[in-house]
């Protein structure tokens, strides 16, 4: 049996202005309720035309289908503007679902935020 944290979320945004990359540090769970909060934050970034995003998933213990839906939607929107989203540092629990949904075929994921930054640089 695995355990997961309470249904809360914290989102912090950092900017790498030199490379024009936005890093979003997410803490908690991304479920039906918290997806709305995350959606608001990420939509605001899109309005600021920040189309290159790295979602730091290191402290995310669970992502529901609604959360994955949000990431897929974000993926389409950023790619429309020649940007991308990259997932970094997924925990095993989250990675398992990511793999089950075969999203590795759509979204690039990296072991660390630095790897994701490097990938944008290439």
């Amino acid at each position, binding site marked *: 049996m695995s355990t997961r944290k309470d249904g809360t979320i914290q989102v912090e945004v950092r900017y790498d202005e030199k490379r024009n990359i936005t890093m979003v540090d997410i803490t908690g769970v991304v479920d039906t309720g918290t997806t709305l909060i995350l959606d608001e934050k990420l939509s605001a970034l899109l309005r600021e035309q920040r189309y290159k995003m790295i979602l730091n998933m290191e402290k995310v213990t669970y992502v529901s*289908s609604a959360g994955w839906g949000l990431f897929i939607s974000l993926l389409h929107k950023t790619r429309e503007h020649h940007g991308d989203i990259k997932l970094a540092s997924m925990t095993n629990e989250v990675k398992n679902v990511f793999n089950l949904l075969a999203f590795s075929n759509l979204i690039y994921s990296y072991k660390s935020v630095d790897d994701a930054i490097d990938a944008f640089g290439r």
Partner: protein
Amino acid sequence: MTSVLHPKSRKSSVKVELALWVMLLLAVSILVLTWFTLRQEREALTQEVTRRGMALAQYVAAHGQDPFLTNDKLTLATLVADVMKNEDMLYALIIDRNGRVVASDKSDLIGKAYTRPRGDYPLDRPAARAFTWTHPQAGRVIDIGIPLILQGTSKIGEVHLGVSKSTIDKVVRRAWKQVTLVAFLFLSGGLLGSIVLVTLMLRPISELTKGVEAIGGGNLEYQIPAMRNNELGELAITFNRMTLELKAATERALEQERIKKELQLAHQIQQSLLPKHTPQVEGFSFGALYRAAKEVGGDYYDFLWLDKHKLGIAVADVCGKGIPAAMLMSVARSMLKGMAHNFSSPAQVVKELNRLLHSDLKGGMFITVFYAVLDISKKTFTYASAGHNPAMLWNSTHQKFRLLGSEPPCLPVGVDKGTLFEKLLQEKKIALTAGDVVVLYTDGVTEAMNAEREEFGESGLQAFLKQHKSASQAGDLMRELDGQLTSFCGDVPQNDDIAAIILKVD
């Protein structure tokens, strides 16, 4: 109860009661004030009359001493007559040291013994004194007595003047009468005035009462007319605000009730879309479970007879939950039913489903689908999984579990227009033998959480199957699983939709 049912009679009684109390207070105040004033007046008048009486007595004493000694009765009679000219003078008399009347306004008393009023005593001091007594005919009388003193030492007689108090009483009585009349007129006017005043004051209350009655009757549009800027005016403003808030709250409650009813209806519709019974097939038994986290859910399961020997079995999970998920689920269900009858291959059915749905799905929505075809006669199970949890097989022959999924995994339906999806989607076939159990489920089963925030998990499902492998019917197994999930979660509210199918080979 009567007063509550008859507010009007209560209102008028308040009016009269208030007016009467005001009047009673006023009347008592007037009476007490008048009584004190008149008592003071009476005392002042008594003092004045006494003072005047004493002056007269001293006059008689001063001028009567010599005639008294010389027994000049004429001069004494003149003195007495002079004194008697004063208003209210009842009697005037001079007595000698033996108590015999020497001069009097009543000539028949002269030479006779003086009868003192009861309680009076011979004067033993040189000063004048006043003594009040009650005359049988003239009423209350002030007797002014003063001794006649010879050469400042020995008393030779007494002068007594009787001054009637009737004038004082008359003045006081008249004053009482006047005060009573004025008070009566004043109180009558006051009573009328206070009734008018109270009526005017109570008018806002009657407006408020009207308002309460209107609202009680269900008219939440009612607003009390503007009033003066006082406490009642404030009450009216508060009342109007309360009415508006009540109206808003009622509308909100109605809206919520409407939404609740619609959700109940949606729940009924969704229930009607799910199979009413599990298939009755020789050699197999089936169990099914569906529990939405909200009124409606995004999970789906179905049994579809494709022909006499082939049974389509589907379990799907729409991302998210609630109404959007339920709507998409009902669309997907119709499409799947159509496709299932057109294509015998499960992979083909799922591919067609993806092709149809992809163009309609926006904003990252997707559906994970596990679709299988069970061949009853050949006992084969052919399946395709699009991003769905792998089904769990309990292989009775080898006494072990096997996950029936896609390796590598395939994307869920709706995220890719076709090329990648169709490349990833696989179809697999397994043969089933007696005692095998297949569980198809959505993540609501394995992610069901208890109070310690632990998930039921695949391990929980496997432990359950091991524990109940002797159960002969899939329906019994499903009931057991449902009970185990319920007791596992305890009081923790269900977070996700749950759908599951159990298939057991006899």
